[in-house]
């Protein structure tokens, strides 16, 4: 046979049969649909109803639950403000540029805490932001109803996203398998002025400014402290967000492989 297909029968052999067969099939489906319809009457029955959820509806002729919303559905985001470290990675990874980092109360007044604010008018629910989140505080939930009457309501502030988090919806359990990072933040020492900007803005506080000996200093010589501070990155705590690179005024930090 080899996958070759051929319509063996030709029309006009038995006219009654040629009309009766499709009619019989349709009638069978019609009778089935009377007993157990395939549709959900949406506003009155909902996908999350216990009668649908988790039920393998084989008996109705449908092999899996009709309206089951699976836990890894990518719907509205949930943000846990408490664990957000303001690393900006969600905003960097967003292809639609719908994430803004806005100030939330509760941070250090000098360096305010910033959390993502999402404009659902632009969001395409691709999930790159939740994949990128190193702390797992930005996830996607199964909430899918977003109707609003004003355009401004499409913008979800961090507090509003936190409310979604508190509502205990099933959250997308997928965490992108992240390969082991051989890359690290490296320093170009001659350019560094020891300004402390990287250590100050590092969201994980993994950068410490350490005294380094001046290369040509005599042993025991007293050095002016400010100039000879250099950042040292703790690779195991670093989330590779690149904030230090973007704030460095001398552009002396860069990505590379630590020898």
């Amino acid at each position, binding site marked *: 046979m080899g996958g070759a297909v051929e319509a063996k029968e030709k029309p006009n052999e038995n006219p009654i049969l040629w009309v009766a067969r499709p009619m019989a099939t349709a009638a069978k489906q019609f009778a089935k649909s009377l007993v157990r319809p395939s549709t959900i009457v949406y506003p009155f029955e909902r996908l999350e109803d216990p009668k649908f959820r988790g039920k393998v509806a084989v008996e109705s002729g449908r*092999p899996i639950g009709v309206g089951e919303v699976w836990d890894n559905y990518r719907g509205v985001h949930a943000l846990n403000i408490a664990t957000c470290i303001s690393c900006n990675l969600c905003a960097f*990874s967003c292809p639609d540029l719908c994430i803004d980092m806005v100030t939330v109360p509760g941070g250090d007044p000098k360096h305010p805490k910033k959390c993502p604010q999402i404009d659902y008018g632009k969001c395409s629910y691709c999930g790159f932001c939740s994949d990128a989140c190193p702390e797992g505080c930005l996830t996607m939930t199964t909430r899918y109803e977003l109707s609003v009457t004003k355009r401004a309501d499409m913008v979800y502030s961090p507090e509003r996203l936190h409310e979604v988090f508190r509502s205990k919806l099933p959250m997308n359990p*997928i965490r992108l398998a992240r390969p082991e990072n051989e890359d690290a933040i490296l320093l170009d020492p001659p350019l560094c002025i020891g300004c402390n900007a990287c250590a100050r803005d590092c969201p994980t506080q993994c950068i410490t400014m350490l005294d380094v000996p001046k290369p040509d200093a005599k042993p025991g010589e007293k050095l002016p402290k400010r100039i000879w501070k250099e950042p040292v990155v703790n690779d195991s705590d670093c989330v590779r967000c690149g904030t230090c690179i973007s704030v460095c005024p001398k552009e002396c930090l860069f990505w590379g492989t630590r020898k």
Partner: protein
Amino acid sequence: MSEMWINMGPQHPMTHGLWNLRVKIEGELILDVDPEMGYLHRGIEKISEDRHYNEVITLMDRTCYVAGLAWEHLYILAAEDALHITPPERAEYLRTMCDEFQRVGSHIMWYAAFVQDLGLMSPFLYGMRDRDLVLDLFQSYTGARMTYEYMRVGGVRSDLPLGFTDRARRVLDWLTARFVEYDQLCLGSAIFRKRCDGLGVLKATDCVEHGVTGPMLRSAGMKRDLRRDRPYAVYDQLDFDVAVADGADVTARYLVRMEELRQSVRMLRQILDWLDRHPGPAMAEELPRWLGAPYAPVGKEGYLLKRNYPKGVGFSSVEEPHGEAQAYVVNEGTEHPYRVKFRSPVFANISAARQYLVGYHVADIPPIMGSVDVCVGEVDR
């Protein structure tokens, strides 16, 4: 009087999207046709040049909205070729499974749209109902029903959820029984056969001349399928037949697609068995940081230039549900592709409309164009 041009489209039930078919008629007879595309052009190739390699995947789902995963696979194969990355074997099986489920979903969608062009409403509803089961499966492991964003350079986003393979097998069992009903409704119906037999004939030589591929080419008796002729992913390890039919008409295209559905089910059973027996990583172990999830700022000289990542050119061709799609990706050592080019099979298929429409009647246009399986999203890109 007699001769005149009429427009079928861009808003017409026959077009299934935005494109225009200009038809020159004399009475009911078609003298000439002129397909006009471009109403849905979004410049996806140009946008891709400004995006990270993984972010282009979001565009691939919008390229063809009924076969998004097949296009993701197409792009990913070319991008991995350009970036010198090899995915793990389990990821390749998962992608092949995506491809075949997508083919099932796409062909059922085609069936629903095609019979609706013929005026049959009940099979349309059955088709849409059954396609939903495939979409349910997609949602269970990709997280969305249409815009999947599942594949990544170097693997796939996530492995399957628990109990997926059993559910998928139940879906396949159920669908196999439905395919019989499809045939009873269409192939066993005198109305369908009288409407479709001998309509829209495009011979194999004409297909080759005009670059027509996919089910249209196979319905003309030519046994060409990239899954067999130029295997990508794991198709060389699967046991399947290439569906071909003689006749080159609308009925033959129907037969080829129905047989492909059965062959896809056959392949999917083998893939699901393999996935049950071989757990493993679904993402490559060795990946550059910029291909992982975070896309942090790159510094003054650019990240890759500093790293001196090897340049490369990637090419891939995939047997998409509509035909042979091709992708070309140029990696110039930055984190964005330098150039991305796609070849859409449907573009070639409907560009040849003059070959299979002239000589028939105006009322034949909906069934003939329906049998081509037009997806305007990928025609215009």
